[in-house]
């Protein structure tokens, strides 16, 4: 027994050295009652999927956040306080989203923006709600923020999945399409979408019947078998709900199988890679979105046109032409809200008080807030804030000649 003790000491010392030596020294506990000194930086946390299958959505998000933070810091910060943005990569891993949220909370952040996807957001919000830290998610699953009463510390900036679905159903109804087949991702976003797609009230309202509901795995590379199954039915259109790369593969498979019915996707495909991967099969695909992809086609009278053009110009000039997309926009909206809350925050609040203030502000004082996704009006019952009437909330994009075009209906 004695031998083991000595080895245990070595073990413990080694681990301790690793732990203490390898860490960067950052002060701050988990929300004590000590007031923060006035010139101390405002810490904001961010969790995005910078690697993994959602990285195509996530890679512009930190850029948008950094863009705003850098701008503010260049102008002296907020009321003399520098903004300190800590960005963590959850690697498209749902569990990591939760552990990273916990880490950021331990580091003393006042709010967290992100994560990129629905599954990750629902995991992270467990930690942020426990610790009473506001979370502004960049994912669109309605189960993240609804019902608002159960998600008092959680908000999100993209249009909600059922709003996008209603937009699609409106389009189908007007095109006299009544029978649809579903092909949805089994995880996170796709699963949440499926629950909304199957809602009896929506199906009745728009006169839609689901003749076949197939699923695919996030990592699947061949959906021909599921499409074969769909081909056996009398479906008039296929609705695909997922992000990357599933929908692109589905578009190609449909072309291979010479399926002539239209393919309609979610707003989760609003990035260039979809077109690059699907190739010519992308032509004809329709999806709902915010206005950014087709900002050039908007009339001069559109209330969002100027804001979107400026956002795109700023983003592209800093990061390269053609890089601005709706996902960057969601992150930009999220951090803008936190920034506005901080601008109105009184001095001398403790970490816990500051977090509560930001939450209260976003819930009650984000009104007529112009963002990339639309005009936000948050309330205690609505933690998303975007309009819910389909045609007001989202436009339709059709991919034509390998480009996004505005499908006006």
């Amino acid at each position, binding site marked *: 027994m004695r031998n083991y003790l000595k*080895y245990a*000491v*070595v073990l*413990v010392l080694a681990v301790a050295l690793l*732990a203490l030596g390898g860490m960067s020294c950052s002060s701050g506990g988990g929300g004590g009652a000590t007031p923060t000194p006035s010139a101390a930086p405002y810490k904001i946390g961010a969790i995005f999927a910078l690697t993994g299958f959602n990285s195509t959505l996530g890679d512009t998000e930190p850029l948008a956040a950094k863009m705003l933070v850098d701008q503010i810091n260049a102008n002296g910060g907020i009321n003399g306080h520098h903004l300190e943005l800590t960005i963590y990569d959850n690697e498209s891993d749902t569990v990591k989203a*939760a*552990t990273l949220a916990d880490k950021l909370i331990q580091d003393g952040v006042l709010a967290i923006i992100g994560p990129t996807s629905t599954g990750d957001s*629902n995991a992270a919000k467990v930690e942020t709600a426990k610790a009473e830290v506001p979370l502004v998610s960049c994912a669109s699953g309605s189960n993240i923020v609804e019902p608002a009463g159960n998600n008092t510390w959680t908000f999100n900036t993209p249009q909600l999945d059922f709003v996008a679905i209603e937009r699609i159903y409106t389009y189908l109804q007007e095109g006299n399409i009544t029978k649809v087949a579903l092909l949805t991702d*089994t*995880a996170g976003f796709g699963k949440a979408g499926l629950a909304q797609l199957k809602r009896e009230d929506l199906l009745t309202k728009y006169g839609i019947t689901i003749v076949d509901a197939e699923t695919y795995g996030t990592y699947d590379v061949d959906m021909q078998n599921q499409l074969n199954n769909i081909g056996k039915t009398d479906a008039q259109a296929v609705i695909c709900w997922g992000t990357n790369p599933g929908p692109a593969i589905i578009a190609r498979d449909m072309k291979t199988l010479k399926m002539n019915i239209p393919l309609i996707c979610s707003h989760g495909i609003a990035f260039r890679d979809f077109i690059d991967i699907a190739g010519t099969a992308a032509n004809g695909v329709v999806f709902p979105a915010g206005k950014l992809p087709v900002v050039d086609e908007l009339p001069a009278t559109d209330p969002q046109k100027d804001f979107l053009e400026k956002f795109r110009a700023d983003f592209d000039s800093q990061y390269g032409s053609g890089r601005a997309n709706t996902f960057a926009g969601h992150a930009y909206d999220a951090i803008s809200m936190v920034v506005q809350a901080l601008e109105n925050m009184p001095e001398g609040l403790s970490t816990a008080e500051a977090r509560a203030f930001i939450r209260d502000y976003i819930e009650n004082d984000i009104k007529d807030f112009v963002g990339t996704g639309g005009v936000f009006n948050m309330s205690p019952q609505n933690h998303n804030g975007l309009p819910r009437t389909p045609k007001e909330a989202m436009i339709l994009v059709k991919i034509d000649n390998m480009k996004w075009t505005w499908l006006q209906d």
Partner: protein
Amino acid sequence: MLVRLKRYWSYLAIAAVIAFFILIPFDWFLGRYTTLMIFIGIYTIVTVGLCLLMGYTGQVSLGQAAFFGMGAYVSAILSKTYGVNPWGAMIVAAVMTGAFAYIIGYPIFRLKGNYLAMATLGLGLIMWILFKELSQFTGGPDGMSGIPFLAIGGFIFDTSFRRYFLVWAFCLAVLLISQNIIGSRIGRALRAIHGSEAAAESIGINVTQFKVKILVLSAVLASLAGSLLVFNMNFVNPQTFDFMSSVKLVVMAVIGGLASIWGAVFGAGVTRLLSEELLVRFVGWDIVIYGLILVLIMIFMPDGLFVKLKEIFERLRLRYRQRGTEP
């Protein structure tokens, strides 16, 4: 005088180690690493089971996450969906997982070498797919949240401070019991099997029975760890139990040293520390560094990091002794 110092040194060492561990969760000490330490404790429990299985019976398991996940999900489902007391759920989960290991043990151990590895891998994958697909029970790929905390009477293990001591109490118990097993008759039988199965059979040891027993033990330990995991995070998700997780568990066991029980703490600690703390700072490059470190440790310290440190310590101690006897 020197003799007395030596004895005090041992007691001091015990005291220092215990004090260190007890003080960790305090804010003024290393409080911000409480969550990390909780995870290290949980993973140590799984690793101990894996060390026993791989180190002492020589059977490789590429699917240990299956047992880890079973414990987690059964506890989660029983306590959240059916309102069973978490302690009860933990026990039921352990029994179920152990029984499952017992049932598959005999057919699995008919396979040898790479076929066995394949079977364990397949098992791990099948369980992972079930966790993802049986959504009515498991919540599907998004998992389940709202899992309760463990509690004794009115004392709820909700703060990370309390959970830390809960987990490490379990961990210590597991370590001591396993140490006992190794020192006992069972341990000797295990070493005999590891040395040569044929020889062990010839002296009357029922090799397959032993292997199955150790499999069951490792499964029960993994299940306990899984239960502790969900009662700690209030949340469960199938991604925690995928193939890479089983790989990481094997890595923890090997870094610690397969033949070493206390090394499991080290293996779990180093691996967790690497992936959660150090490498989070190096966005993107973290997995490159992780892979490199893995390769280097296995090449230069194939018996595990812990054993290597012991060697270094021994060499230093001998040198100290030699100097001590010089006039």
